[in-house]
């Protein structure tokens, strides 16, 4: 009997909205196993779901039991969550464990979700940053070190174990229904802080488009690092206006002032270490990914902002 085996895929970060979109797209054709280190999520009877710490030994049992073909790693704790130390353990050491196990059990395809934050926001950034640009973020904020380290690790494994077929995706701001990151929280709020006199260019990708991008990337085993961003741009304050947010001006000069204010307020939606991203642009060039994987984002900015305008939650 030569029945074709459905691909077995391990999906991390399953509690996130993005992972669930990816799961929706893949569940008909693949056998999925979902894990998350935050919580156990119910994804239907056909998808086993675990709440597990990658650094624990039982994690390896999943690899033994399910014989995965591929891994989609979206389980990165965002900079706004947990402490620096715990984030480092989960994001850096956890990813290392995941990649080691992937190598040990002969995984043939790994997609790692990173972020455009790794480029770092500085005044001297050119626009349309491509994938070979240096990752300045680690030098700018200790809270973004784990994001850069995660990438470095994935890069080392990319070259050392070509058979893993690692692809690293660096998306711009992921937004849309269900997304709980900093920028999405800001767009969804009634009032959002801005640094007076600064309105950097930003890029937004709809969560459904991002899920498409991840599925596309998974299906074509081209190794490498790719930015993921639509060819559309908008200034931060203009985006807030289109989302119906009242802008609250935070004094921006000298630079110590906003840092002190945000440091004191400790706003979860406007953390001081992300301040530079609301001051200087980090515009990435997503054309290489479009060309290589035939990616075509379908949800325009106007549609994204209309969703936020019509779905206001109290601050």
């Amino acid at each position, binding site marked *: 009997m030569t029945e074709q085996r459905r691909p077995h895929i391990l999906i991390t970060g399953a509690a996130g909205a993005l992972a669930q979109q990816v799961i929706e797209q893949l569940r008909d054709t693949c056998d999925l196993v979902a894990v998350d280190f935050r919580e156990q999520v119910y994804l239907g009877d056909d998808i086993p779901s675990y709440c597990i710490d990658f650094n624990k030994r039982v994690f390896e049992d999943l690899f033994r039991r399910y014989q995965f073909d591929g891994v989609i790693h979206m389980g990165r704790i965002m900079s706004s969550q947990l402490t620096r130390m715990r984030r480092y353990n989960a994001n850096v050491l956890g990813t290392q464990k995941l990649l080691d196990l992937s190598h040990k059990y002969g995984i043939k395809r790994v997609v790692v979700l990173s972020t455009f934050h790794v480029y770092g926001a500085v*005044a*001297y*950034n*050119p*626009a*349309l940053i491509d994938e070979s640009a240096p990752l300045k973020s680690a030098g700018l904020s200790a809270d973004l070190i784990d994001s850069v380290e995660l990438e470095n690790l994935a890069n080392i494994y990319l070259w050392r174990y070509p058979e893993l077929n690692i692809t690293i995706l660096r998306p711009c701001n992921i937004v849309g229904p269900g997304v709980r990151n900093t920028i999405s929280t800001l767009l969804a709020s009634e009032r959002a802080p801005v*640094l*007076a*006199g*600064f*309105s950097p*260019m930003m890029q937004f990708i709809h969560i459904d488009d991002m899920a498409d991008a991840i599925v596309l990337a998974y299906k074509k085993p081209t190794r490498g690092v790719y930015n993921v961003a639509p*060819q*559309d*741009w*908008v*200034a931060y304050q*203009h985006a807030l206006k*289109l989302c119906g947010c009242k802008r609250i001006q935070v004094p*921006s*000069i000298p630079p110590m002032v906003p840092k002190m204010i945000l440091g004191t307020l400790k706003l979860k939606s406007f953390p001081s270490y992300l301040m530079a991203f609301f001051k*200087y*642009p980090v*515009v990435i*060039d997503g054309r290489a990914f479009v060309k290589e994987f035939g990616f075509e984002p379908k949800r*325009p*900015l*106007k549609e994204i902002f209309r969703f936020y305008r019509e779905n206001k939650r109290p601050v």
Partner: protein
Amino acid sequence: MSLASFLKSRLVPAELDEHINRIRKPIGSLGYDPWGYNNEAIKYGLSLTKQIYEKYFRVQAQGVENIPAEGPVLIIANHSGQLPIDGLLIGYALASREKDPRIPRAMIERFFPTVPWLGNLLNEVGAVLGDPVNCAKMLANNEAVIVFPEGIRGSGKLYHDRYQLKRFGNGFMHLAMKYKAPIVPVGVVGCEETIPAIANIKPLAKALGIPYAPVAMPVVLPAKVHLNFGAPMYFDDLEIPEEQVTERVEKVKAEISRLIDKGLSERKRLF
């Protein structure tokens, strides 16, 4: 009618609005490009510049038709007068030309993005951080790019050094060669007299984090400005040693020097 559209109808003449819409910039769905250029902001910018260009500096521009109608091009000029007024006037000359107008991009000093309001404002009207990567990507996008190879050495020079060209950087030549972009030299005469500075207080500039702190009258004088655009210069993209690149840069510099002399001889009086 909303306040915004009322203001627009008063400030932006209909023909200018149409003129700009005719220049099709590669922009996204909300009117922005990756460098922050905004199709609406430029309309206000050009309406204001029109007054400054025609009434205040009474600019006389010659040879603006030398700038090709399309494709990448580098517009190289001498820099002077403390504020980047020269860039503004060159930009307007090209944007307002009757046949094949273009909205050029000016490469600006690295210090501008750190200045609140001004940095964003400059970006919205097409100015871009003077970074080689930016310039390269814009040439690849078929933009017309204004570069002042003297940088702050030129704009910050004192009145007694007027019309003396400072050292040119070689970066623009490398980009012109790589992207096969013709170079259109421009001689700017008159901007030196707009803000004549007699000294530069270096410690103050350092303390404020700005490129220079000129001792000058706090006004911009209405000097008459002459812009002379030269014929496009073409350079091949052969692999050549830096010394020969410098020679090519000197050629462009000599041409700009000639255009400045032309402007100076045409000038009847300062104001």
